C-alpha cells in the first residue's frame, strides 16, 4: 500500500509522517505541493507544520496549492485522507471538513501530552482502536480550538462524527473535540499528532495504529 504525505512550503511534520507510514508497513510517498498529482497513492496524510508560515490564517493559502485539486477529488471519491494539526486546518479551509480552528483560549502555543478518548472506530484511520479507548497523544499548536456553529456541532455529535475527544482540553475546543470526520467518514482531521508516538524508541507507540488502521482497511477491501 502507498500512503502519500503532502509537502507544502512550511510543512514541518512531513518527515515525521513519512517515517510513521513506513513504520506502519506502507510505502511512503512524498507529494510536492506544486505538482497536481497523487502518484497513485491509496491514502493521503496532510501533515502538520506551518504551511505558508500560517500567514493570513493556518491552512488558508495551502488549500489552493496545486496538489489540493486531485486531493479533493480523491477525498470526494472516498479515498482515505488524514489531516493532522496544520493538515486538519488545511482540510477545514478546503471545506473537506466542517468548522474552523480558532486561537487557543489560553492565547499561547501549547505543546504537551494530553489524554484523549477514541470515540469512533468506523473510520479508516481509527479502525484498530477500541471504542472508548484512552490514548495519550502530543499536541503542539497555536490554533487548535475547534469551532463550528451550534447546528454543525449537533450534527457532528448526532452522526457520530467526533472521532477523538480530549480528556484534558488544552485549547478550549467546543465539546472537547480533538478530531472529526466527514459524512462519508473517509476524511479525518486530528489536532493531536499520532505520528509522534509511533515509535517505541520515543517511549510510545500509541499513535501507530492510526496508520496501521488505514492499511488494515485497505487490506479488507482488496
Amino acid at each position: 500500500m502507498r500512503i502519500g504525505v503532502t509537502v507544502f512550503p512550511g510543512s514541518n511534520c512531513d518527515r515525521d509522517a513519512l517515517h510513521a507510514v513506513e513504520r506502519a508497513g506502507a510505502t511512503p510517498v512524498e507529494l510536492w505541493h506544486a505538482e497536481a498529482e497523487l502518484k497513485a497513492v491509496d491514502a493521503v496524510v496532510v501533515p502538520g507544520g506551518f504551511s505558508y508560515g500560517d500567514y493570513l490564517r493556518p491552512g488558508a493559502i495551502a488549500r489552493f496549492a496545486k496538489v489540493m485539486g486531485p486531493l479533493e477529488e480523491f477525498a470526494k471519491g472516498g479515498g482515505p485522507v488524514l489531516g493532522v494539526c496544520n493538515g486538519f486546518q488545511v482540510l477545514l479551509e478546503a471545506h473537506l471538513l466542517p468548522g474552523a480552528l480558532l486561537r487557543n483560549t489560553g492565547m499561547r502555543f501549547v505543546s504537551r501530552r494530553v489524554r484523549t478518548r477514541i470515540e469512533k472506530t468506523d473510520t479508516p484511520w481509527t479502525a484498530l482502536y477500541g471504542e472508548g479507548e484512552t490514548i495519550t497523544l502530543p499536541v503542539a499548536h497555536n490554533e487548535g480550538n475547534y469551532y463550528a456553529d451550534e447546528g454543525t456541532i449537533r450534527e457532528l455529535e448526532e452522526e457520530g462524527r467526533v472521532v477523538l475527544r480530549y480528556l484534558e482540553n488544552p485549547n478550549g475546543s467546543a465539546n472537547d473535540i480533538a478530531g472529526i470526520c466527514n459524512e462519508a467518514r473517509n476524511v479525518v482531521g486530528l489536532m493531536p499528532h499520532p505520528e509522534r508516538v509511533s515509535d517505541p524508541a520515543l517511549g510510545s507507540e500509541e499513535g501507530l495504529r492510526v496508520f496501521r488502521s488505514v492499511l488494515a482497511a485497505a487490506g479488507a477491501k482488496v
Partner: protein
Amino acid sequence: MNIQETYTSLGLSDFEYDRILELMGRPPNYLELSLFSVMWSEHCGYKNSRPLLRRFPNTGPRVLQGPGENAGVIEVGEGWALAFKMESHNHPSAVEPYEGAATGVGGIIRDVIAMGARPVALLNALRFGPLDDERNRYLFREVVRGIGGYGNAIGVPTVGGEVEFSPAYSGNPLVNAMCVGLIRADEVVRAKAEAGEGNLVVLFGAKTGRDGIHGATFASDELTEESEAKRSNVQVGDPFAGKMLIECSLRLLERNLLVALQDLGAAGIASSASEMAARGGVGIELDAEKVPLREEGMEAWEVVISESQERMLAVVEPEKADEVLKVCERYELDAAVVGRVTSHGELRVFDNGEPIGSVPAEALADAPVYEREVRRPAYLDGAHRFDPDALPEPDDYNEVLLRMLAHPNLCSRASVYEQYDSEVGSDTVVRPGADAAVLRIKGTKLGFAVTADVSGRHCYLDPRGGGAAAVAEAYRNLSCVGAEPVALTDCLNFGSPEKPDGYYGLSECVDGMAEACEVLGTPVVSGNVSLFNETERGAIYPTPAVGMVGVFEDVSRHATPGFKREGDMVVHLGDYRPTLAGSDYLEIVHGKVAGKPEQPRLPREKEYADLVKSLVAEGIVDTAHDVSGGGLAVALAEMSITGGIGMTFDRVEVEPMLSGRRGDQALFGECGGHFVVAVPEERWDALQEALGGVPYDQIGRTGGDRLDVPGLLDVAVDDLRAAHERDLFEQHAPEGGHLG
C-alpha cells in the same frame, strides 16, 4: 559630521581609526569605514576576548571541527556527527523582545546550516530581572513567545534551556540561543571561498531591505536611552522563509552544487564575504546592484551591510550556477549571482561597475586585540565575609521547602517549555523537564543529549569557581541522563571589558571554565561573546552560559529524574559538603546574595559523574538526578513530583547527614558533585558492586505520597507539586506592546 565624529558614531576608537589608516594606506570612505566598524566590533571581531578564548582547550578525540568555523563539530559514531553553537541576542531582545529572540533563533540555525548540517535541536539560556516588574514580565513573555514563534514554525524542536530571574538583569535581559545539527562526518562544509578564482558568489534567501543596519555595532555598545532611538534598526524574522532556507540549503548540498556556504549575520553580505575571503586567502568582488531588494532607493553601502534575515551566501562553480538558481526557485527563494572570487585578496564592492570600496579581507578579519587591565573588584571581600551561622534557623522546614519550590528560580519550567514544540522531528526521547534532553539518531541505536547551564550568581560571588561550576553542572546533567559528555559551546555574557573589575570577572570565569574543560575532558568547539551588558544601573552578573553535548552508544539506555516505582532504594552518591554560601536558599529565604560558594572539586566531579553515566549505560539505574539549585531537599522533591511517588528517609541515615550541620544547611546547602539515584531492590547488589570506592549512602526508599525526612520535613507530594507547578506567566495579561 567630521571624520572623527563619523568613526566615533560607528563605534570605532581613535586608535582603531589610526590602525585602519595604516592598513589601508589612505583614508577609508564611508562604506569601508562601516565594514571596519562591524567587522571590528566585539560581536564579529572578538577584540576584547580573543586572548582569553585561547585559554580554552579545543581538541579531543571526537572533535572534527573546533572554534573558527560557523559551528563546532563532534563525531558521534557510525559516520554521524553533530554541529553546534550558541549565540547571544541580548541587545536586540532588550529593545524588541519578540523579534530579538526570534531572529536570535533564526541566526543560530543558519550557523548550523552553514556547516551542512540539518538543525535538529534548539536550546536557550535566558536571564531577566524579577517578575514583580512590568517591563521584566513583558520581556520574559515576549522573548519566550519569540523563541517559540520562530522555532515552532521552522520545525526544529526546542528541547531544553535555562531561565532565571535576578535584579542583576533588569533592563539587560540575556537571550542566548543554541542549535544542534546532524550531519554525516564526511560531509562537513566549510565556509571558505576555496577553489579560488572564477567561482561565483550566490546570494539566496529573502530579499534585502534596510534591516538592522549597524546592528553589530549596536550589539557591542552599552544600552542607553539613546539605543531606544536606534530602534529603527530592528530586524524582523520570517520563520517561513527560514524553513525554506533550511530545506533549500540542504538540497543544494545534497546535490553537491556548492563549494562553500556561509550564513549572513551581523553586517550582512560584506561581513560574510570578507570572512569567506579571509578564510580562503582569496578576494571577493560584489556587485551591489545585483542584490534582490525589498525596498527602493537603498544605497550600495546599505545593501552590502544590511542585516536582513534569512539569507545565505554560497560559492559556486560557474557551470553549476544555473542549477543552483533553479533549486532556489523550487523553494520560492530569491537568488542571484552577486559576485565572484578573485585572487587579489580584497573585498571589493561595485555599484553598476563603479568601484565604491575596497578593503583587504585580511585587514577586516584582523581586528585589533586588547589586553585589558584586570582588577579584583572590591565587592568580593565584603560578600565573602558573610557568616551563614548568623542567620536565624527556620522552624518550619515544610513551609520553607514549599516556598522555595514556588520561587520563579526553582519552580517548574513547564509554562515556558510548553510553549515550545519539543517533539517535531520525531527524535526527542527525553523531553524538557529532565536534567538534559535526549534525542535519537534515526536508523541507529545512537543518540545524544544536550543541556544548557548558566551560573551567574555563583560567578558574581566567585568568578573562577562559578565558571568551573557551569561546566561541571552541564557535565553532571548529561551524565545523569546517561550520556557521555563530549564537548561544549559557550556564550560569555559580561559587562564592559573596559572596566578593570569587569574584565576581572571575564578573565577569571574563562580560567575557571578552561580548567574544568581540561579536567573533565570536554573541549570548547564553538562559542560567542557578548560584552557591554550594562545599563545605567551597572553591569549584569558575569554570566557564562554553557551548552554541552554528550553521546549515547545505545540511546534506549537513558535515565530521567522522576521516581519510577514504589519501594526503590534511594541512594545519595558523591560529595556531600553542603554550604549555604551563594545558595538559592540564601537568596530566596533570606534575600542575600553572599558568601563564597564551595570550590568545585573537578577530578571528583568527573569520577562521580562518570560513574552515574555508566550505571545508566549498563542498565542498572534508570532514575538519576544531580543535586543543584536548592540542594538535596529540592532535588528529592523534584524526583517525587515528576514521578508522582513519595519518599521516606531512613531515620538512621538522617543522623550522620546532619551531624554538626543545621537543618537548613543539610537540606538546602549546595556544593556540586553529588547525585541521587534510585534502584529497585533486585538491582541493589549490582549497584553496590558498581559503586566501588565512591562515597554513597542509601538514604531511604520511594513510596507513599509524602516526602518525609524524619524530624525535618514531612510534606504531601501533591502539595509539593502544587507549589512547583506554577505558571510563570500568571499575571500574563499582555501589558505593553505587541498583541501577538
